[in-house]
């Protein structure tokens, strides 16, 4: 035998799934939302998408190089971060601000903590929040769909979330100029580039669930909790609940950001707690807080709790009896 035999630990077959494949699936699932953002917000959206994705990949490449660690841009995770970040931004944001967001996400949040799988908070969300507090005016300048985002005097409009925050008790009819629920579904209203078109987001989310890239647990518990809370806050007004679910970053957050592997619990019970926690915090901010929107903050707050949630919900190894039960049984004997 000329070549030597490979000797390695079992198993000797591996599934065909790869990190790159998973990230590619996430990119594919976000394509509908990205396309719709270009449809609604034009070339400006395309420019923002290119800038965030490009600067994310570049930031990843350079930071790995500087840290003398293996290059990881081929796993496509930087593309996903850039893409999600772009979808979270208003279409009017200056491009250099978007680039700063990408650099914060990749360098500060991800690579400084050790790269993929090591960051304790979601890079895109953290970048968004940092941009929000750094450039509050620019980050709240929403235009209506089909407005020319390049023009300095583009007509701004309020997001449905901001409009709804002005009324108490879910009185939807009291809000003037609120888009219809159909408009909410197809995305014909103001808001972040990627969050407006609910149908595209739901399609992408379903794709991820069917491809088994994400488990449906977090999206379901997250959205479900928001539904229950807003229904209660709206005194049983289903219309209000529907606006709350379709509006703001809820769908984008629940399907694509709260399910981020690195920053969500890996066990089933932990996922339930995480989803409910995100839903509760989002609802509290939306209903009682002064901000119209709370998805980003809820996810980042729950990200921080993940190690504790996991620690408390770790499943007992096969066949191991719970300590309490053991004590009970011992007491019986």
């Amino acid at each position, binding site marked *: 035998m000329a070549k030597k*035999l*490979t000797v390695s630990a079992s198993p000797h077959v591996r599934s065909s799934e790869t990190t790159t*494949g998973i990230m590619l699936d996430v990119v594919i699932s976000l394509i509908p939302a990205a396309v719709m953002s270009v449809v609604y917000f034009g070339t400006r959206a395309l420019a923002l998408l290119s800038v965030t994705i490009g600067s994310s990949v570049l930031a990843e490449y350079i930071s790995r190089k500087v840290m003398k660690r293996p290059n990881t841009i081929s796993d496509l995770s930087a593309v996903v971060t850039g893409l999600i970040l772009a979808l979270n931004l208003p279409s009017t944001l200056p491009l250099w601000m978007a680039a700063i967001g990408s650099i914060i996400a990749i360098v500060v949040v991800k690579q400084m903590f050790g790269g993929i*799988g090591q960051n304790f908070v979601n890079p895109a969300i953290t970048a968004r929040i940092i941009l929000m507090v750094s450039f509050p005016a620019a980050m709240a300048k929403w235009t209506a769909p089909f407005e020319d985002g390049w023009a300095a005097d583009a007509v701004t409009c309020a997001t449905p979330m901001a409009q709804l925050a002005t009324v108490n008790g879910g009185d939807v009819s009291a809000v003037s100029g609120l888009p219809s629920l159909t408009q909410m579904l197809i995305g014909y209203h103001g808001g972040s580039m990627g969050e407006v078109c609910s149908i595209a987001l739901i399609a992408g989310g379903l794709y991820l669930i069917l491809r088994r890239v994400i488990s449906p647990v977090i999206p379901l518990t997250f959205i479900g909790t928001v539904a229950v809370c807003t229904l209660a806050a709206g005194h049983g007004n289903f219309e209000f609940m529907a606006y709350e679910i379709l509006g703001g970053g809820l769908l984008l957050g629940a399907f694509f950001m709260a399910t981020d592997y690195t920053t969500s619990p890996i066990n089933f019970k932990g996922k339930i707690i995480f989803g409910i926690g995100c839903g509760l915090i989002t609802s509290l901010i939306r209903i009682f807080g002064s901000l119209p929107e709370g998805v980003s903050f809820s996810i980042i707050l729950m990200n921080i709790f993940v190690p504790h949630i996991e620690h408390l919900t770790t499943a007992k190894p096969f*066949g*191991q009896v719970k300590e309490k039960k053991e004590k009970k049984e011992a007491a019986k004997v």
Partner: protein
Amino acid sequence: MSKIVNGVLTAVGKGRGGVNVAHNKNTAQLPVERMPVPAKVVLPMQQHIGAPCTPTVKVGDIVSAGQVIGDTDKFVAAPVHATISGKVTAVGDVKLANGMICKGVTIESDGQMREYEGIKPPVVTNKAELCAAVRASGLVGLGGAGFPTHVKLNFPEDKNVDTLIINAAECEPYITVDYRCCVENPRDILDGVYGIQKVLKFKQVIIAIEDNKPEAFKILKEIADKDNDMGDEVKLMTLKSKYPQGAEKMMVLSATGRKVPPGKLPADVGCVVMNIASVAFVGRYLRTGKPLISRSITVDGSAINNPKNLRVPIGTNIQDIIDYCGGFKSEPRKIIFGGPMMGVAICDTNAPICKQNNAVLAFEDRKDIIKKERDCIRCGRCVDVCPMSLMPTNIERFAKTKNIEALIHSGIMVCMECGSCSYSCPSGRPLVQYMRLAKQILREESAK
């Protein structure tokens, strides 16, 4: 009899975890072929879990097939028999396929395959006699682990063992010898069930087959239906094909709903699990008295010219077996002893087949054999698929940092190294290796 039909239970959803591995049962339709007697066999003295045997023959002795050539007075062990007739040419250290060195006896064939004259059917009327007979037959679990069968059957009376589970799941890809056993020797299987049941009187006997082997199920059911002596307590059961359905603890859970606690044996929850080939062997042995001198193996894989199911004398050189199967189609890059999920990759084909080996697989260079290792992305697939409800990714971290306290808490000792975690990891991490390392760290710690 109708109860057997009623006994067709499904275990869907009972188990947890596991992976869907491509079955690749390419050799399922190939009848077991008897390989011609090899020119020589090498019989290691350790072909089981437990104490090694001591050779009872010396160089120059003339032995016949079925004669004891190695034994020990230790309980957890099984004697080794000559598997061909001929002359003992060497007694000394031999290298096993996995690189382990142990004592062994080399026999050169005289080509006659004379049977030992002392072979006669054993008389079995009680448990002690059954266990003694099974021990004398040299039987060890033929499914892969190689645990001496008589030790399993000799469960203490106070354990209330009420269930015999006959494992025909054969969940490892490629291997088809258990399936062939069901199809070709259903009589032996039933004889084995009777023989054991007559003495040990279990409340129920469950024959469990994965649902990807409907023909085997039909054949077993037909013969069981025809036979009216068959007690009502014998049930046939189909299990969902999902790796590792055939693992002992999974089997007990699927068949009875009982969970074997960590560090305990199936007997502690009232079960004895036997591989179907072992049961068939017991049936044949009780009828003929012929000890374990040959076994069926699957020879398959992308690098093998003519994949086959073979019956080979134990101790046959692997290279002889591969040559008999037409040699290598192309240069093999990996040769595995056993299935691709839990088998051992070997470095040299010049090694003997042992009692517990059920397959020799040879593969060409393939991408899925070695996957590029990347950083963990915490996707949680390893956690989802772990049949023992462990968190492999966390255990990997604890093992790397030697975090003893966390390792103890993690329950790593229940890991059976089924390979589901490594298999499903998209980042190609060698998780099973870390699981082994973690166990070793704990063993060393407790030895301190």
